[in-house]
């Protein structure tokens, strides 16, 4: 029924052309500045320069690590939450999804300020910890990498959950029972059946979270107390303070490559489970 190439193109091309014209072309032109020699010709020296600086290396690695941590955490929590939501009755499902969506509408700045209230020295968490006797003195959670992690997770987890809900919803109904009776424990069910069947949701959710974490500016700035440099901070410095758009485009390109790599890696992870040797 679906072998008509012209039909397929007619459906897919408007979106592709639109994205290419409105988005891809201008961005590529801008990014190409980072590869240009002012006197003409092409070079990657801006990139080798960038990475030869040990500060930049450290920032790069930290950004990568934090992005990866937030992505993995949101994937793990996201699957559990999406799974739970999908298994609810239709009415409850809508309401819970609404609750998940709610925080997305809070201005990110306001949200980080709320974390200051929660995580501060006199904040709710420290009060609770002290009341429960878990800690003696207030913990310094705020203005650290941990605070950034918490802030980013809260910022992006809903995106992951929502992406996964739609992928989980249409999963073939008997796939999980079938895996169960074939001896799979819940971990194996997830890894071998749920993950590959929802990979599109994971890839989109994971890319959103990872990219979001890489390019978040306000959360690291406020919750990290600017003690923790991230690539986006460097990018922002180049744009906002130094007005150096070429240097900015170099960092931007590095961020894009990281996101793209993450995207591909996610696809791999989700598919790896079923690339199996068949000696047939």
């Amino acid at each position, binding site marked *: 029924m679906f072998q008509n190439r012209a039909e397929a193109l007619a459906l897919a091309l408007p979106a592709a052309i639109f994205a290419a014209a409105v988005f891809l072309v201008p961005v590529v032109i801008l990014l190409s500045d980072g590869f240009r020699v002012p006197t003409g010709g092409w070079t990657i020296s801006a990139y080798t320069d960038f990475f030869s600086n040990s500060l930049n290396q450290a920032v790069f690695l930290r950004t990568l690590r934090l992005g990866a941590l937030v992505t993995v955490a949101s994937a793990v929590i996201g699957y559990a939450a999406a799974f739970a939501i999908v298994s609810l009755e239709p009415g409850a499902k809508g309401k819970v999804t609404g609750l998940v969506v709610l925080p997305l509408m809070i201005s990110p700045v306001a949200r980080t300020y709320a974390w200051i209230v929660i995580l501060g020295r006199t904040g709710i968490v420290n009060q609770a910890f002290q009341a429960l006797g878990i800690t003696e003195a207030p913990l310094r959670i705020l203005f650290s990498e941990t605070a950034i992690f918490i802030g980013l997770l809260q910022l992006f987890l809903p995106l992951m959950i929502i992406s996964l809900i739609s992928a989980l919803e249409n999963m073939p109904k008997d*796939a999980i*029972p*079938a895996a169960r*009776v*074939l001896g*799979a424990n819940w971990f*194996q069910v997830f890894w071998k059946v749920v993950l590959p069947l929802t990979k599109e949701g994971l890839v989109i959710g994971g890319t959103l979270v990872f990219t979001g974490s890489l390019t978040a500016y306000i959360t690291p700035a406020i919750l990290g107390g600017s003690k923790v440099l991230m690539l986006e901070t460097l990018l922002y410095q180049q744009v906002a303070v130094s007005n150096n758009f070429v240097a900015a485009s170099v960092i931007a390109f590095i961020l894009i490559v990281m996101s793209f790599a993450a995207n591909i890696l996610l696809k791999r992870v989700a598919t790896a489970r*079923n690339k*199996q040797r068949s000696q*047939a």
Partner: protein
Amino acid sequence: MSDASYLSLEKLTLAYGDSVAVANLDLDIRKGELIALLGPSGCGKTTTMRAIAGLLAVKSGHVRLDGTDITRVPANKRAVGLMFQSYALFPHLSVYENVAFGLKLKGMRGTELDTKVQSGLKSVGLSTFANRKPAELSGGQQQRVALARSMVMEPKVLLLDEPLSNLDARLRLDMRTELQRVQKETGVTMIFVTHDQAEALALADRIVVMKSGKIEQIGSPEDIYNRPTSSFVADFVGFENIFPLENGKMKTGAGLIDLSGDLSSHLSSGAPSAAGLAWRPRMVTLGTGPFQGTVRGTSFAGDSREYLLDTALGPIKAEVEASQPAHALGDALTFDLPAEKAAPLLRFV
């Protein structure tokens, strides 16, 4: 645990939400036994199987396997295999990988795995389809993948939900033989749902007939086939001429009629408390006998020919060898419901 109750269901009640699908079901199955589960569409066969496999929370009652109460044991720890009526193949895996799935989870690897999978595929005739995805298979091919996938696991109990329904008669015979071979080799206890009576008769040690979530009769194939205890089972296994008894008389379209002497004595000696009588079409004698009928319908069934007769008793179905001379629509015939062939029914439901 006695040998007679390797797998036992005790007062099993199963429900979807508030609607009870299986009620208070008791069933004991011997080790290595081959049970056929028969019953009308929607009577609870699949539901029962899902509960045995651990896929459906039990509302009340127990499932015991080999002496252990497994009612709350998770599905993956039960060593119970299930072939789904809907196949439930993994769409993202090839045929090979579908069959290998459970074996790998058992830790099987390398040549051992490959040999096992290949022989599984071979036994269902799909060796050349190993690399296809389920979506690229015909209905019957998909069903065979599902069958192979559940059989290679060699579980303690294998539940097969209409395993052969989408296969042609020829292939079904081969698969039957295959099932018997596996059963003999591994001694697995097997419950299979089938709507094909020949299959049930040929394969099963015992047949369980269900009706509306309850067991209606359990017995050997011969029992079920020749000695149905209720009008429901009789009808279900093909006794199409069924009459209730009232005060020793047969209630028909023509009112209560006295039983012939033969029949009467046949009954009083064999089944004094009978509530009804039943004859298969094949048991009806045509061309001779006390009753009169007119041919209203006829159909060919290979070896035999079936007639639908309009009679004073009501409609009667009769079947005769195809080699006998054929009757035409409208022909008037005499017939008999022979006493010695009648199946006496204990319950009329």
